[in-house]
């Protein structure tokens, strides 16, 4: 599916710009909008600036006339990190979706837990994961869109792992421990966080799409995210024991197949890609064409 480019970069856009470009024009209605000034009660302790939406925007909208609930993280505020209010807005949205029988879109852009309110943020992530499981058990989808500047790190990566479908762009990164965290704890020999090419090969969107860590790969463009989201809204929503058994087999197979790989290029070579070194430089359409012929897929096993 090819969408007309909108001229706006998803990576560069703000959370509100992404929502405006992704959803049907004029359809978005925000819950607890910035006019209500629900700020973090904890940041003032650290003399840090607050934001009236705490970096999380939630509301209702339609996408191609399908009603959805939607959440977007603002990566420019505190790195999109999960704090008490930020997380509670998403928890509430997911629980509302279960009551209303709605699918949910999450526009991730996060470094993980906000350390200044670490305990509240960590717990919020667990509450969000549980709310996603409840929503999916009720037969609704949760679709994650990942292509923001902050990536999808830490607890954000675990939340993404609970979604029914993930859509990534090349710039989208999904990981638990970020490069800086690994380097700080294990040394530069384990991970040189300044080696940007290594970061992309290890946790970037192309690698995740190739190993079945994401279901859709799109250009850095809201129109492409919109088309892929519409397609993902047609996927099977279910989360039950048979799906988890299928996921178990999928993750067991991944470990057996790629467990000895030292680099992304080893993984891609095992997939049968003749010139793995060329992958990072491929244009989006060429990459998708190549990847779709050999990649691992997660259909009904996520």
């Amino acid at each position, binding site marked *: 599916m090819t969408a007309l480019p909108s001229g706006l970069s998803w990576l560069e856009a703000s959370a509100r710009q992404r929502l405006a470009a992704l959803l049907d024009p004029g359809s978005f209605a925000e819950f607890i909008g910035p006019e209500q000034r629900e700020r973090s009660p904890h940041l003032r302790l650290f003399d840090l600036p607050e934001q009236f939406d705490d970096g999380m925007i939630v509301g209702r909208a339609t996408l191609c006339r399908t009603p959805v609930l939607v959440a977007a993280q603002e990566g420019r505020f505190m790195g999109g990190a999960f704090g008490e209010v930020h997380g509670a807005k998403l928890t509430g949205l997911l629980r509302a979706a279960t009551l209303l029988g709605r699918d949910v879109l999450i526009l991730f852009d996060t470094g993980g837990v906000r350390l200044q309110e670490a305990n509240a943020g960590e717990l919020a992530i*667990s509450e969000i994961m549980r709310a996603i499981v409840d929503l999916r058990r009720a037969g609704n989808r949760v679709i994650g869109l990942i292509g923001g500047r902050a990536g999808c790190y830490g607890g954000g990566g*675990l939340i993404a792992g609970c979604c029914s479908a993930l859509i990534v762009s090349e710039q989208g990164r999904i990981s638990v*421990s970020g490069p800086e965290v690994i380097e700080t704890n294990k040394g530069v020999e384990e991970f040189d966080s300044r080696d940007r090419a290594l970061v992309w090969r290890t*946790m970037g969107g192309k690698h995740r799409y190739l190993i079945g860590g994401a279901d859709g790969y799109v250009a850095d463009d809201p129109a492409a995210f919109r088309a892929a989201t519409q397609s993902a809204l047609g996927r099977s929503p279910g989360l039950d024991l048979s799906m988890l058994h299928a996921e*178990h087999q999928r993750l*067991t197979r991944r470990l057996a197949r790629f467990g000895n790989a030292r680099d992304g290029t080893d993984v891609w070579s095992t997939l049968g890609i003749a010139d793995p070194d060329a992958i990072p430089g491929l244009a989006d359409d060429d990459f998708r064409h190549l990847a779709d012929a050999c990649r691992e897929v997660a259909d009904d096993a996520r």
Partner: protein
Amino acid sequence: MTLADILTSLFPMGHVAEERDGLIFGRGTLPGGDPIQILGVVDQTALGVEGALALAGRVLEIAASADSDPILVVIDSASQRMSRRDELLGLSEYLAHLAKALLLAETSGHRTIGLLYGGSAAGAFIATALSTGMLAALPGAHPAVMDLASMARVTKLPIEVLTAKAETTPVFAPGLDNLAKTGAIHAIWDPARPLSDQLAELLASPAGDDCRAQLGLDRGGRPKAAAISARVIAEARRG
């Protein structure tokens, strides 16, 4: 208390357990004679892709069985294993898989009780202890999202300043009491009483919806979470 002491106090009628690669798998007998499944992370082990997959596999076996044995998840872990290889393989999916398995076991009729008796941190904590239906802890347990020294590096605040702030606010500082105030921990057990009685009390209380935000409000550790979630739900239903 050592893990051996803990298991002896939990299961006076006996238990069997096997440890391998920093994980534990076993089975105990409850005072009424009913079985309870045991699994978890021991010896401050960092949870990587293999460990998360092995634990999830056992949880799925239990969940698929015809009985309704409860599951006790014992935890003394480090954080998630921080390595290039784990992230290359998609550790986030393996940890989320374990969390989903525990959450689904609970809804399939197997009560899940976490027991934090040592350390735990970050993604490993979320995928194990925080994914159980009810979480108990023993005094001396020391959960942390991140230690204060690392936090000082990331926040660029002197450790003396962080240590001082930690005394006045539970919301960011490591430690069992701070985490309990946010509502993450249902009960801190008394090691002077038989743990079997305290486990029986938790198993006797009804499994229910996620009430941790309300606990955090009642204990003063999370002043806003419960109300914010409730208001989002109210605004969503109004439309």
